[in-house]
């Protein structure tokens, strides 16, 4: 087990490296370089720096050096926590990142927990009552969840909330609780706002997971070891949970590999629509104003998040499925 763990962690390093390269590439996509953009912005505010300052800046950011040197500078600084400056906000990127990243992670985690807790029982139920009315209804709702794009669902919920429930759906707090100290009321308000993004972001993940669970369980239910367990005199109920469900959980665990990126990416766009104080809105602003260090940092961190998450899910799978650990054949 330990060997497997080490191997996976080692493999993760080149992956992260490549991700950082891609992130850096994204940073440099827009025409012009960082210094130009900075100067343009300053000019827009009426301050045109002199030649010396410009030369200094070019030196500091290495814009006239070959691209790999620039990358090297950027990545070494990033590893130390310095992601550069946002010239739109005139602050280090880390400051902008801090809280927002934490909130993104928090919301993503809660959403993932939600997705798994809801989808697995529904998937199991659906498989056991195949072709029943409930199965069809749940499958249809599942499909619906897959088909409504995140942002549309967010828009619809905004509309419904406003029109029919007279509540402010966007953001994480109602205006009156925005800066208030923590209290029971504030917590309740927070929760009442939180469920909207969780449902919106979790909808498609839940739908996908229901289908995966259902399909895998259906596969396992027909297998010989289920019959053999019954032949030992095990009652159906107990047998169900100990054998086919247990085996079917393996692909469900490994489904985290696609649920995690979906949740992170979905939460980005949902945050934009619902105006949540997480990474999404800032990311969009940065892209629109070509504040590329901010954008690059976000891509790097978001992607690393999903890679690490995928690693965790792989480890969970290895723990759950002895076949992988021992490298035995299926």
């Amino acid at each position, binding site marked *: 087990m330990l060997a497997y763990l080490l191997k996976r962690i080692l493999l993760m390093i*080149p*992956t992260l490296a*490549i*991700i950082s390269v*891609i992130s850096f590439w*994204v940073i440099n*996509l*827009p*025409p012009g370089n960082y210094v130009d953009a900075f100067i343009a912005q300053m000019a827009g505010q009426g301050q045109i720096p002199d030649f010396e300052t410009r030369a200094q800046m070019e030196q500091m950011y290495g814009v006239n050096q070959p691209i790999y040197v620039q990358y090297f500078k950027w990545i070494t600084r990033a590893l130390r926590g310095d992601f550069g400056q946002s010239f739109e906000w005139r602050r280090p990127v880390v400051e902008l990142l801090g809280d927002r990243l934490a909130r993104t992670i928090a919301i993503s985690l809660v959403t993932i927990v939600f997705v798994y807790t809801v989808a697995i029982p529904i998937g199991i139920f659906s498989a056991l009552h195949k072709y029943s009315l409930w199965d069809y209804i749940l499958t249809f709702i599942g*499909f*619906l969840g*897959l*088909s*409504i*794009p*995140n*942002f*549309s669902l967010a*828009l*619809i919920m*905004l*509309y419904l909330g*406003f*029109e029919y429930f007279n509540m402010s*759906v*966007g953001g994480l707090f109602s205006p009156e609780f925005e800066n208030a100290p923590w209290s029971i009321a504030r917590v309740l308000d927070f929760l009442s706002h939180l469920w909207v993004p969780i449902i919106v972001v979790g909808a498609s993940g839940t739908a996908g997971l229901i289908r995966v669970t259902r399909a895998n369980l259906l596969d396992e239910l027909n297998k010989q070891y289920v019959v053999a367990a019954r032949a030992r005199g095990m009652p159906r109920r107990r047998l169900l949970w100990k054998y086919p469900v247990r085996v079917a959980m393996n692909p469900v665990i490994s489904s985290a*590999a*696609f649920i995690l*990126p*979906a949740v*992170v*990416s*979905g939460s*980005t*766009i949902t945050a*934009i*629509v619902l105006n949540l104080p997480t990474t999404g809105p800032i*990311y*969009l602003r940065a*892209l*629109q104003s*070509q504040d590329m260090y901010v*954008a690059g940092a*976000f*891509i790097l961190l*978001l*992607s690393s998040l*999903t*890679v690490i998450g*995928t690693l965790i899910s792989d480890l969970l799978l290895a723990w759950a499925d002895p076949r992988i650990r021992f490298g035995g054949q299926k």
Partner: protein
Amino acid sequence: MLEELPNVPANPGRSASLPSAEAALAGAAPTSTVRISRQAEAYYTASQVQLIFWRLRKHRLAMISFFVVVALYLTAIFSEFLSPYDYTARHSQFLYAPPQALQFIHEGEVSLRPFVYGYAMERDPKTLLEMYTRDRTKPYFLTWLPKVEPYKMWGVVELDRRIFGTVEEEGSVFLFGTDSLGRDLLSRILYGTRISLSIGLVGVALSLFLGIMLGGISGFYGGVADVIIQRAIEILRAFPDIPLWMGIAAALPPNWPVIRVYFAISIILALLGWTEVARVVRGKILSLREQDFAMAARLAGVRERRIITHHLLPSFTSHLIVVVTLSIPAMILGETVLSFLGLGLRHPVSSWGVLLQDAQNVRTIASYPWLLIPILFVVLTVLAFNFFGDGLRDAADPYSD
């Protein structure tokens, strides 16, 4: 009615240690006849495509979805003709006009010909905003194929009729309302069908090409190429797609001609989309490559490329079609999201995502909720593709059931 039919073959995979029919097949003539129903006979003699089609037919939802998809694409092709107005035409007297519902009863009388009520302007006492209400004194009757201002379908064919419109000249029929510039939303949505659906196809075509090529190389040749391509697929799959698309799309220069933007967007979408195709292709090739029939071909001296195209490929064409069908909705959604955020397509090319840009904040939606109607079309399209693709997958899988 039963007929005398020759023997049908016994189940394959029978054990060899109980000597029975297999040895007989070599020399013995089929002398016994067994009656089976005509239905069973047709079942046993159908080709693979027929079998898939049959199973698909049983799946009613998939069939309905198939027709929905066809209907959508027909709409996309004939969108100009099917729209009551030109999608760029601005009706300046009717900005943000609410949808006009079809009516059949006017002043107590039933009218077989549908009609809509015109608009009357009122001022809302509280907000002092202008509001449109239904003016029941102004019924505008609808007719098929009215004569309208000449327009060009696809930019080439000149037509002077549209599929439906009002009889009265001053009449207006905005079944889905209008937007901030007074443009008929229905017409814009129908035109958007063309853009949104076609970008799905282009993107999928690119993914298919990349996916088959890379997946094929990976699966068939193995070795270093396989390892590299595998890692690449893993890395790309680990990326959260929307942020990556956003990042690349934001870098497209604003002064690019719209056509270029269109293709750039589809390339961007395909950049992450090919991984699914490649995975399926590689998986299938790996499992098929070692199977006996491929080995037999190789032993017979068939050249490698021919092995791939003639022997392996047909086995998983059906799986490919399924993957493709299921990838299209992802592309459509991706483009919609990008355009919604303003990073994708832009005017004058208006996909559904571009239309939804108008519906970005609560206030606008609250006042003019009909701007959300394009969402229904997106959902309908994605649902239809998903149901159809799912049904297709169930039908193509010979081992389910």
